[in-house]
């Protein structure tokens, strides 16, 4: 009985640890061509590119003097 309780507790601990470690794997869109993968990657890459571009109105703020 004690052994079973210990096993349950250890499994619970393993689930807690695993939930923090396992990353969600990308999914396909169902037609087998990995289309959703491309869309996800595309969004990440172009979003990164947007962040790299600098707008002409952008300035560096070092704090007011008064």
């Amino acid at each position, binding site marked *: 009985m*004690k052994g079973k*309780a*210990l096993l349950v*507790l*250890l499994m619970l*601990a393993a689930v*807690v*640890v695993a939930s*923090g470690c396992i990353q969600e794997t990308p999914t396909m869109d169902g037609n087998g*061509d990995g289309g959703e993968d*491309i869309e996800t*990657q*595309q969004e*990440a*890459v*172009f979003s*990164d*590119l*947007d*962040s*790299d*571009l*600098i*707008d*002409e109105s*952008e*300035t*560096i*703020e*070092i*704090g*007011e*003097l*008064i």
Partner: protein
Amino acid sequence: MKRFMPLFAFAMLSLLVVPGVLAQDSEDAVPDDASNEARAMAAAPGATVRLLQLEEAIERNIVIGERIIDRIQESNESFDVSELESILDEMELLKQEVSEVDPEGNTEDVVRQFVDFRHDASELSRTFREIARTAFPAGELNRIRENVTGNVEQALSRIRERIRNAIREHNADRIRTCLQNMGASEEGLLNRIRNGQLNSSGIGEQIRNVFQDMSAEQKRDALTRMSRNATSNAVRIRSALDNAVEQFQERKTERIQERVERINASSARAQAYLQSRLERINQAGGRAL
């Protein structure tokens, strides 16, 4: 069963405590603003933009600082403005130091200097603000702020023009790399960016259009190359920012010592101020960022 409970409790506690301990380590990291700005510094055109923007921010505060000192002298003759003047003297030196950084130099060196000088600029501005605010009645600060910050554009027009051109060059450079990774050539698009015909959101839209016209296989290859390029840049900047944190305090002391030596002999006031600042930094020790 009871024998295992302490072990189990320890394991659960570790899960809660370890992230907190790791988070504490990041307290000595470069501030978020500087980290975000440094993102663009993986290549020389982006480094040029950030250094010019920092120079502009310092120049702007020098112009405003001079106006504030004039206001104090007009309205509160007994107020000692010597420390404020010394801060502006140091800002002048700082501006010169920023302008002397070679944006085409080693990325780690350039990012480290940017982080150092940006920190100095913020610290000098904060010290000036703390002193200047005591010179005026609290109820008048908003009105004075509005008066002294107006019409600075003319004084900054030359550097603004340089920044505008540098931003266009940086954006064109970034898109040129992107197009190379796509296996595309769009000289017309690059020219429109350099001529200022597209803002950043317009550029993003155009490059997405180029991408949409590609085949699925070309898209996959392009995304792989673009991801690799982005990761490589991010790793280089992350490494440069991590290095910028190392020996920050020692570098700060050295910078101020160099300024003491560089300051014009006629400006004994600024020299005395820098010496007292150096003493305060040495006394403070510890954290600096």
